[in-house]
């Protein structure tokens, strides 16, 4: 039986463990920003990664196209049925938009929380060990992306930017279990209901909206969208639909389970929303979470 650990190897292993613990402690402390070597590695690897991911996307895109062609007949039927409805809605929408603009002019209000410039980005990788729900996209600081910006697909909000380098940015998805991931949300209605998207139930596959004032009546089936009050998110990005309402652990506020509108797997193209009106640090920004307290309801 040979000795696995000679003295030299044992010392090497011990030193290795110490360095490991030190490095982990060091990098756990501040995950909001990357230091220079990290940024360089991210940009370099990100470039190589995009060489692999983009052809892969075109291959999956090809199969999606075939799938789309096969479904064309069915889709066409349903779309035709909805077309008449659509035309009248469009006219109405145009009318309302115009009126909205006119009214805005009257009260001299230029800022609009809803307005944003979309930046198109391609997903180049997903965190392969999927402990954290993170994807990396091919647009970064040089394209005007900033920390905490909203990331969405055509179906709705998917996440927000948690780390930016020159040419890439890391996006944390809404389906994260991270406690410090918050999005200020609202349920529009006669009276808007405000709350925070906070947490995810992996077994139900649904998001959790917390801190809803218990005086409000939340119903199943109501739509949830971003409120724009968090600081950097635009208003009105669809998050999902309420499926169940209950009270939180302390019985002081309500919480609602929300079925997300967007699909979190198989993401290939996303939009990053750059809000037009001024941005502030708020609930969308995890930097403030320390002062807020973990369960302060």
């Amino acid at each position, binding site marked *: 039986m040979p000795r696995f650990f000679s003295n030299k190897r044992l010392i090497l292993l011990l030193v290795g463990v110490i360095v490991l613990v030190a*490095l*982990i402690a060091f990098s756990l402390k501040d995950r909001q920003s990357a230091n220079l070597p990290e940024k360089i590695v991210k940009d370099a690897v990100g470039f190589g990664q995009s060489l692999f991911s983009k052809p892969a996307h075109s291959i999956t895109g090809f199969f999606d196209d075939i799938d789309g062609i096969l479904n064309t007949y069915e889709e066409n039927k349903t779309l035709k049925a909805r077309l008449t409805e659509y035309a009248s809605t469009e006219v109405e929408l145009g009318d309302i938009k115009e009126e909205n603009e006119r009214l805005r002019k009257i009260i001299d209000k230029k800022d609009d929380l809803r307005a944003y410039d979309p930046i198109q980005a391609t997903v180049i990788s*997903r965190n*392969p060990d999927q402990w954290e729900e993170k994807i990396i996209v091919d647009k970064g600081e040089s394209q005007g992306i900033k920390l905490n910006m909203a990331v969405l697909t055509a179906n709705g909000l998917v996440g927000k930017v948690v780390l930016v380098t020159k040419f890439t940015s890391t996006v944390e998805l809404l389906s994260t279990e991270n406690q410090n991931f918050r999005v200020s949300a609202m349920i529009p209605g006669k009276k808007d209901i405000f709350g925070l998207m906070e947490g995810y139930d992996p077994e139900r596959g649904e998001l959790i909206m917390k801190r809803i004032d218990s005086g409000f009546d939340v119903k199943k089936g109501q739509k949830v969208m971003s409120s724009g009050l968090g600081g950097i998110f635009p208003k009105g990005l669809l998050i999902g639909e309420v499926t169940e309402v209950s009270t939180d652990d302390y019985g002081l506020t309500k919480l609602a389970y929300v079925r997300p509108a967007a699909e979190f*797997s198989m993401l290939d193209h996303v939009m990053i929303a750059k809000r037009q009106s001024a941005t502030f640090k708020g609930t969308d920004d995890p930097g403030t979470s320390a002062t807020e307290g973990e369960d302060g309801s």
Partner: protein
Amino acid sequence: MTRFIIPLIAVVLFFLEPVFSLFSPIELGDVRYTLVPRFVIVYLVFIASYYDLRKAVLYGLFFGLLYDMYHIDIIGIYTFLYPLICFLAFVIIRQVHRSTGTVMLLSLFMVVLLETMSYLFASLIGLTSISMEVFMTARLVPTVIANLIFIILFGWLFKNLVYKRVVEKQAGM
């Protein structure tokens, strides 16, 4: 020639891992199954058992560090786990008969080990709250199946390639 192909394949596998993880998680029925591609470690186990432990550990350090910096943002997890797995694979393969079948089995076992260790780590620093049973059924088993397919498809190729390099080296090239 093979001299350059060996690191090149490691690089390609490193870049392919996140591409394949774009397909995950898959939903069957009501359960979400997470598939984790662990291609690099499979390849490193082949290098460690057929070629050279030192090379495998060096590759492990390098790709582990890249993995940590690019994907995880916590430096030190895979930088430590990859070389450790290579070392363990080397220790185990010395005790058993070294045939392609056993090396394939060993690489699969190492995937299980790596996955379990990364689970323990993730629950230790609070990245996940799933229980052991959920981890086993929704993550470990599908991961093992996915990687088994990969090993069956590419195991022979890796073995032949690494073996070719060993022969070349003995010939003094």
